[in-house]
């Protein structure tokens, strides 16, 4: 049924939005793609999964996933980005790719490569809203995404810290002469970005009720596509592109088969790169961002 597919697509799109926002926070400020974000998402998922199965309540699991991912994000900034920040843009990006592979290896060694399954008693409730069935976890994902996006929007748009982040993103030198510690704000962007990825990981792992060390690659690549489609320099682009891609993907699977799912998502991304490289929400063509 179409409405049911739309709700499922929105849920998937919500997670893409969170993860794409996570990529955009670093991309917008530093102009680099932090490829390790996909694995922070996966590690956050595993931490949340582990805490839930150990009997902790959902808020603790979310907090655990968020903090774990944030701590690793700090390490990535300190070891993988800061010493390389004056190198060509591709160098720190390759360093985050290295971190990404290491994190996947660490997860495989700790949790194994087989999918971990969440027992049925967790978050199995279904609510019937007319013709639509919404799972308990689906509702949590949607509400949490709205709250987190609103929180990030508030921080970025309305607080002195958010303005400082935007100032560093626009012109690092000008931000410095206005008293902004660009190094501290860069670290902050990594922490915010890692926290968001961690939360998104917990939510999606619990929503699917299963997780593997390869979840980050699969969802992370889609989130990068969402970021590109929304506009790499427009962090709000993910708000539009996330649900759009989520719904497109679910509808493609429902009506075209899962074998063409990725073709639609990445095909759309390539089309955007060719026709509107600044993304759906980008303004002028010059707003397409730095070459990485």
């Amino acid at each position, binding site marked *: 049924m179409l409405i049911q597919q739309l709700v499922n697509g929105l849920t998937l799109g919500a997670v893409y939005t969170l993860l794409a926002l996570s990529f955009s926070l670093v991309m917008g400020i530093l102009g680099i793609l932090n490829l390790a974000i996909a694995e922070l998402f996966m590690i956050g998922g595993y931490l949340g999964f582990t805490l839930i199965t150990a009997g902790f309540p959902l808020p603790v699991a979310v907090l655990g996933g968020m903090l774990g991912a944030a701590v690793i994000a700090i390490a990535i900034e300190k070891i993988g980005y800061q010493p390389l920040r004056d190198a060509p843009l591709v160098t720190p990006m390759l360093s985050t790719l290295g971190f990404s592979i290491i994190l996947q290896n660490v997860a495989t060694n700790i949790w194994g490569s087989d999918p971990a399954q969440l027992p049925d008693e967790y978050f199995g409730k279904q609510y019937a809203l007319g013709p639509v069935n919404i799972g308990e976890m689906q509702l949590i994902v949607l509400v949490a995404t709205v709250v987190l996006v609103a929180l990030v929007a508030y921080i970025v748009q309305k607080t*002195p810290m958010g*303005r*400082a982040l*935007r*100032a560093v993103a*626009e*012109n690092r*030198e*000008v931000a*410095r*002469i*206005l*008293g*902004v*510690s*660009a190094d501290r704000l860069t670290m902050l962007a990594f922490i915010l970005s890692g926290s968001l990825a961690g939360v998104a990981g917990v939510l999606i792992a619990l929503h699917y009720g299963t997780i593997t060390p390869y979840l980050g690659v699969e969802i992370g690549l889609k989130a990068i596509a969402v970021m590109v489609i929304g506009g790499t320099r427009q962090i709000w682009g993910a708000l539009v592109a996330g649900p759009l891609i989520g719904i497109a993907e679910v509808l493609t699977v429902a009506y075209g088969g899962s074998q063409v799912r990725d073709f639609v998502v990445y095909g759309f991304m390539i089309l955007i790169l060719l026709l509107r490289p600044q993304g759906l929400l980008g303004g002028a063509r010059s707003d397409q961002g730095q070459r990485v």
Partner: protein
Amino acid sequence: MLTIRGLQVRYGAITALRGVDLDIKQGEIVALLGANGAGKSTIARSIAGLLPFQGDITYQGEKLVPNAAEKNLRRGIALVPEGRGILARMTVYENLLMGIYTRSDKSEAMADVAKMLERFPILGKRRDGLASLLSGGEQQMLAIGRALLSKPKLLLLDEPSLGLAPLMTDTLFKMIAQFRDEGLTVLLVEQKARQTLKIVDRAYLLETGRVVTSGTAQALIDDPTVSDAFLGGTH
């Protein structure tokens, strides 16, 4: 207030400053004059803390560390950079709010932002518009207003008249002259030597990274050598 001794700056293989000495006293307006590439902006940017340098820059008895722009602003040194440094993707109001980023007296600072919007009525009118939509002169007002909001003791103005219409340049120079009455110390980097010497107390003339002469504005205007080389030769 500020003493510079033996300032040297290199950009890779190029030497931009070759041992500059300079003094600025409290409440003075001092100009750095010279052609493109003479090293004027490099001096201002070194003082602001944007460049690595060799030599000594002493501000209010304290030696400044190279590349410490954030700290220098907190010490009271504000730079209005060449090209204005407007944050184009932010509104006029948000740009002004960035001017009070380091201030801890937040309620007083917000009152100062409101006063700044009154001081520059055009900024008040465009308060919620993107800064990129302002004209060149309006952007310069915004850049200066934003710098003033940090409550600087030393204001560094790097080529503020660049790209402005003559009428706007006159208004700008009158405003800079008024800073003296407000007790602000100003270092003005300019190429419009004749107009600059009318409003400053003293000036340093630079050529290829060296100070070639310095003195009071009047002494420099009266010096035929200076007049020929820098002021278009009226003597």
